């Protein structure tokens, strides 16, 4: 049984030679190509991951830009609407003021015309009344009155009438 735990230098030598030869051969023909392929694949995967991250960032950037553009257009639209509303209100106020002004002027003009017409009618009425009065007086007196006397009488009469109108 001693042999079980007694190292054999010859076998140790073969083991070391075999193992080191295997290390050299595997390094040259197996591990080199295998590790190179693995690293190439890892580099490729890293590049792909980087590209994917880049594309994701780009998509994120575009999304943000679109959101900003939408927000800006929303603001702009709101501004346009507000401005239109303000302008509409201003225009309405302007139209209203103009209409009111026009109405006022029309009213004043109408009122003035009415006043003048009234005065004209009152004058005509007075003259008519005077004529009728003179006529009535002529008929009553059956005689013609001197125009100067007639005028003086009429003036007095007109004054009396004016006083009477004012009193009324």
């Amino acid at each position, binding site marked *: 049984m001693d042999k079980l735990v007694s*190292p054999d230098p010859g076998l140790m030598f*073969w083991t070391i030679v075999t193992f080191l030869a*295997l290390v050299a051969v*595997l390094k040259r*023909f197996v*591990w080199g190509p*295998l590790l190179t392929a693995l690293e190439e694949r890892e580099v490729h995967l890293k590049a792909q991951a980087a590209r994917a991250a880049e594309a994701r960032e780009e998509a994120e950037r575009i999304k943000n830009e679109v959101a900003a553009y939408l927000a800006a257009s929303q603001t702009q639209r709101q501004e346009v609407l507000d401005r239109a509303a303000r302008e509409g209100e201003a225009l309405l106020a302007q139209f209203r003021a103009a209409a009111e002004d026009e109405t006022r002027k029309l009213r004043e003009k109408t009122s003035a015309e009415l006043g003048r017409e009234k005065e004209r009618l009152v004058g005509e009425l007075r003259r008519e009344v005077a004529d009728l009065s003179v006529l009535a007086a002529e008929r009553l007196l059956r005689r013609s009155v001197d125009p100067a006397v007639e005028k003086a009488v009429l003036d007095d009469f007109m004054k009396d009438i004016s006083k009477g109108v004012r009193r009324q």
Partner: protein
Amino acid sequence: MNFEEVLAHHLLDHAYFALFTTGGFTLAVSKHSVTLWAVAGLLLLGLLAAARGRSGAARLWRTAVEAIVLYIRNAIVRPIFGHDADAFLPYFLTLFFFILACNLWGLLPGSAAVTGNVSVTAALALSTFVLIHFAGIRKFGLAAHFKQLVPGGLPWIWWLSPLLVPLLYVIEIIGLCAKCVALCIRLFANIFSGHIVSLAFLCMIFVFAQFGKGVALGGVAPVAVGLALFVYSLDLLVAVIQAYIFTLLTAVFVGMAVHPH
């Protein structure tokens, strides 16, 4: 044939012929040396198929090998060696696959368990010992490497340190040797004991056959074969674990020489 002879027959090396003998050293072609070459050859062919094969089976095999290679690189070699990892990677990959192949080959019925031979594990541990110093000397130079065997920063006490520092060197060198001896014995003992236990269970059949063939075949054989199969399945696990442990510890020891702090 007693149990000791059975063990000796199954586990010991047998020289076929001696190439030369000088002093106490005999270089012979033996059962275990031929097994080593066969395992190395098969491993080389298998790994060449994985690295260069183009068929579907080869690609499948390559995927399996790559998984192990990546694990050894990412979980063992790179964390320990950092930037120096690529220089050491082929050694550790070969070490793992070689020990694993030898362990698994030893589990094939009728084959020799070369990692159950202390000479083989001692040679692998000796390779580790040499690699520890080779890596340390290559990185720091001869003087600096041996100076670093004892950790720096020890307090200097004039009447104690001249005695203590040489003692520490002796302790560290013994510790380094002990690590490598432990590597050797751990692998050897695990593989060897697995085969001994399997053989012991199977030999129970022949021991009980002394009391009658009926007892051996009817009562003991099913139990013994069942237990032997159980131990065999454990051995499959041990084959992988021991290859991993040997590789990991070798990497740790070499890493301590390359990165002493």
